[in-house]
């Protein structure tokens, strides 16, 4: 706040620079999405023509009707919501707990175990497809959303993230003080760590939710019935081998992105709220 008092010319220039920079970044970030919308509202021929369409067309409803007639769009969105939400909540809890343990507890083999978790990230996952598939069939989880949710709870990045965040944002003194007051370890986690790491929660939640929502290869392998499709798998059904109706494909893709944008905006609000609260407190 005190910086605003020292406002002078030099600051205005750097301020203008910051605005220009952010505006360019915002434009470049949004343009492909805008263009996706443009293509979702145009007929296939307008997309494939020279030069391509740059303004929204009148095919919004037609394209989306085609999508809904070809795939079970809303059922798939619902499945995606379930899968993403459950996985996200589970990951937030498990990763913050593990991250807290790694950041604040002392136990034998801690560093070794932490490195072991990092090493698991280094294994290319694509090859394990067949053995993973075998496990899922043994559990009888084929066409079952648990096949996505349960393996999705393994999140080495989440643990890494939480550990880094907790170690630099939760003061040791607070933890020790709480212990002296007779708090159990879980209570220290719940009452001391959790309130401080809300921004980290919000960030991880957004990231994980998006990741699961957009995951594609694995759901494609384990979900085979229309009724269990997540949206990314269902969208695959729009891509016909012989005829590519880009208007319809991008309409499906665009409207599959909209719920994400809404969820992101909601979480973002929480995110900001928790930050301002933190500022007031300090």
């Amino acid at each position, binding site marked *: 706040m005190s910086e605003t008092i020292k406002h002078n010319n030099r600051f205005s220039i750097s301020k203008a620079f910051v605005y220009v920079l952010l505006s360019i970044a915002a434009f470049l970030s949004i343009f492909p999405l805008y263009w996706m919308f443009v293509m979702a509202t145009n007929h296939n021929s307008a997309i494939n023509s020279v030069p391509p369409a740059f303004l929204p067309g009148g095919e919004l409803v037609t394209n989306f009707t085609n999508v809904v007639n070809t795939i079970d769009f809303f059922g798939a969105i619902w499945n995606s919501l379930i899968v993403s939400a459950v996985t996200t909540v589970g990951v937030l809890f498990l990763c913050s707990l593990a991250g807290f343990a790694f950041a604040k507890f002392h136990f034998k083999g801690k560093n070794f175990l932490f490195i072991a978790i990092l090493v698991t990230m280094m*294994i290319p996952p694509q090859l394990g497809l067949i053995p993973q598939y075998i496990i899922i069939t043994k559990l009888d989880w084929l066409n079952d959303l648990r096949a996505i949710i349960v393996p999705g709870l393994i999140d080495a990045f989440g643990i890494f993230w939480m550990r880094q965040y907790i170690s630099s944002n939760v003061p040791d003194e607070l933890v020790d003080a709480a212990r002296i007051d007779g708090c159990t370890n879980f209570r220290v986690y719940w009452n001391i760590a959790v309130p401080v790491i809300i921004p980290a929660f919000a960030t991880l939640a957004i990231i994980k939710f998006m990741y699961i929502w957009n995951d594609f290869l694995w759901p494609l392998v384990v979900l085979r019935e229309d009724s269990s499709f997540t949206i990314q798998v269902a969208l695959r059904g729009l891509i016909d081998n012989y005829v590519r109706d880009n208007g319809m494909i991008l309409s499906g893709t665009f409207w599959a992105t909209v719920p994400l944008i809404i969820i992101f905006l909601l979480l973002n609000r929480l995110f900001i709220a928790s930050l301002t609260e933190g500022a007031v407190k300090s």
Partner: protein
Amino acid sequence: MARMNTETQVQMPSPKKKSSLSEKTKESLSGYLYISPFFILFAIFGLFPILFSFYLGFQKWNGLGEMEFVGFQNFKWILTDPLFWKSLTNTLYMWVIGTIPQLIIGIILAYALNSALIKAKSFFRVSIFMPYVTSTVAVAIVFGIMFNSQDFGLFNVILGWFGVDAVSWGTSEWGVKIAISTMVFWRWVGYNTIIYLAGLQGIPKELYEAAIIDGATIRQKIQYITIPLLRPIIILTVFTSTIGALQLFTEPLIFIGRTYREEGITVVLYLYREAFANLAFGPASAAAIILFIIIIVISSINVLVANRISR
């Protein structure tokens, strides 16, 4: 729900339990307990597939018939295959083009977003993060249309304004790499920005205020406050984005399609192709093991360097 419940139930009675265990043992036990879900789940869904891959690396198997032990033959094949080396150098190039700028620009944007002077912060934050919301498949489709090799492709039109000839993005040596790197860059800049932002917001404002009172320049503030305090987060992003870049897969798969053109083939695409298109699961597993070793080496160097730089 169930998990939450059991946890709270565990938590409720525990204060009443008389502590027959020492504080230290209790701390250790809690530590093991808190990290156990990861290891249990990983043992089931991660470890078995990995062990299976290692085993397969020494077998000849087409995914359907009998396996046959072949010793180090698969490794020999992979290491003498020019296409494997090509895929490795491609991956490294795309790592450099796509990832390093992504981290630098991510830090700059996060710093700009975090500066107190900026209005409409929320708008900028949301816009810049938006690409991550888009699925990889959608990114590949939209950029695939922009990187059309014909004169009317969007990027070729832009090049045309500067008098540059149209580039065949889909087939030329650098065209493919630049196109794929651009997709990666576009989708992940916002992600890294928001990670850095979360880190920046953890830095107490008082530190900056104190620095201003001491007459510090912006550069000094970044050098002596931001970077050191952001170090854990920087290491995190360097580490994860390096791994992500070395495992680059979906974008090239969709962009170059199932022709697996050598200009754009990455190591993971190479091993995926060996396994699922060519049904050579042995060599594919061998390639996975080699990639695993490479990732360990590069990540270690990476973390060491990042540690040193930001210290």
